[in-house]
């Protein structure tokens, strides 16, 4: 990265910090974080956020207040299967930044094979309300403000309206979404349970388990946005 880029990134970082500070002062909802965690002494996790394609200059202590300390469990699970398990591990979560301590409220995912901020995954669309996937057979469901989209292993794609997938804060650890597709008349039921979910093959842990039923097809997987 050249000097101009770094300057822009630092400026963006200061703006982000300012926005976060303002949000906290006003009691705003948790912000989204992405970056790398490293293991500190006595089980401490240290977090350094990504600012664009670069790593931010500040390292903060991570306080995991996610249900069942899902982030801590997810990080440990990914370290079990990843290559060079001691290196910094890429994570995404929602939380609060209080300067020297960043508090995790909702664990989204940890990915073992990401080596830098520049290589951070971009598979989840901005504004995604729900992003879930699984293997054997492969499937993926993504809900954005524009609508829901189910991709099945045989290549079939089914679209759903957006409204059934609106965020349901306070709905408990398990949320259920039902939607009907005008495209083919099929219905989908998605149950999302907020607990750590590991996909060892992909070196990825997420914050929720998902069971999806569409017509006569039932699949299970993990959700990185929910």
């Amino acid at each position, binding site marked *: 990265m050249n000097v101009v880029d770094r300057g822009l990134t630092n400026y963006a970082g200061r703006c982000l910090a300012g926005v976060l500070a303002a949000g906290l002062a006003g009691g705003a909802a948790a912000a989204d974080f992405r970056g790398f965690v490293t293991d500190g002494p006595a089980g401490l996790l240290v977090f350094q956020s990504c600012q664009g394609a670069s790593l931010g200059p500040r390292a903060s202590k991570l306080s995991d207040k996610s249900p069942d300390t899902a982030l801590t469990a997810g990080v440990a699970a990914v370290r079990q*299967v*990843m*290559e060079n*398990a001691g290196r910094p591990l890429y994570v995404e979560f929602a939380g609060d930044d209080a300067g020297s301590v960043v508090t995790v409220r909702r664990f989204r995912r940890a990915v073992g094979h990401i080596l830098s901020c520049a290589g951070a995954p971009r598979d989840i669309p901005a504004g995604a309300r729900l992003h879930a996937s699984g293997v054997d057979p492969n499937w993926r469901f993504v809900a954005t403000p524009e609508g829901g989209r189910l991709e099945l292993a045989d290549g079939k794609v089914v679209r759903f309206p957006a409204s059934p997938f609106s965020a349901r804060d306070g709905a408990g650890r398990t949320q259920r979404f039902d939607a009907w597709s005008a495209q083919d008349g099929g219905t989908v039921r998605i149950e999302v349970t907020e607990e750590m979910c590991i996909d*060892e*093959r*992909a*070196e990825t842990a997420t914050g929720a388990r998902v069971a999806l039923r569409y017509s006569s097809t039932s699949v299970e997987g993990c959700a990185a946005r929910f």
Partner: protein
Amino acid sequence: MDRRDFLKMVGTVVPAWSLIPIANAQSSLYSGRILINIHASGGLDASSWTDPRETNPAMNNYAAAGTPAGLAGDIRFAPMGSNATFFSKYYNQMLVINGVNSETNSHTDGTRTHATGRLDMGYPNVAELFAAQYGRGLPMPWLNSGGFSTSAGLMPATPVPDSNTFRALVAPNAASATNDFMKQADLNKAFATRAQRMAALQATGTMLPKQSLLADQFSATTDARALMERVASFIPATFDTFTQAHVGLVAAQAGITSTIQLASGGFDGHSQLANAYATALPRLTDMVDYIWQKSAALGLSNRIFLRIYSEFGRTPLNAGNGKDHWSVGSQVLMEANPAWGNRVFGASGPKHEQLKINTATGAVDPVNGVVIKPRHIHDAMRKYLGITTTDPKFNLKVPATENFDFFNPVAKTGYPNL
């Protein structure tokens, strides 16, 4: 190991007449078989290597592009990297074992399993077992540069020294791989003068007992230095690009090691696998090619048994055009002129599903067959290499009904699903 330890070892085990400074001369210190293990780290995709899938575009980019797999002798290979050149050159030297179940999706566990033969801990790396059998007493019995190196208590691994350190270990006048502290000719003159003075002193016959003892000890160190210089004579003026491999081969030529473990990485292709492998595959095959070419030049090739393995295989393509971990993968065993070359033993399904293999014939045998696991390969290798141990705690626990006849030249699987 520091120079003092090295000097002790050399002084202890190197006979005075041992090493002859000729390019392809062999040391009498250790002149047996050399085991070379190469860990393709990251989880080498079998589809990109010795178990290609060319018809299903969900499996490989080359399948989507309609590029057929290559064939060298009876061995098929993926049309990626420098595979065509590599396999065409060496198919007669290799036994491919496909459909090997690592029993894990973890890099750490897979690394250990393929090094030791067992998923559970406490078993020795095959290199350690080999070094304990053949390299005991050598200065660097097990040279290690990557992969699993935890000792089971038989023999510690010696990290492969870089070229500077290696030369400094065996040549006290060496400042680096290419430079000396003093002009060697000047040093030789000083040594010669000192030796003359010592000889003259001893010839007077007037030394006190303690003086005489010290003089004898001095002469002994002079002898050890001479032996060290013989070892140093095998060190080239410059080391090649694959320095770790070169250092290992020179150490083997000098007779100071029995086994070398190397690693070649870049195979953890979770996204854009073809791009990552465009670099990683040639790096691996070029290193193996280098080892065979260099060992031939050094007169070592007929002594080498080489194994290429990885932690596990990989899945079909994911949404990121990469591949995730899959426990079924492949291994390659090589020798210079084996009776068991140009063969494929074991197989996997269209998406690398696990298949059972007949232990005697190598045929796919869903009823009486056995899933090939690292322990089976290690059990066969231990017998082939003469390192079968009677120690019960290192027993691989392979029942007689699961003894695969990997090295039988007429037993083979081929590619039955294609």
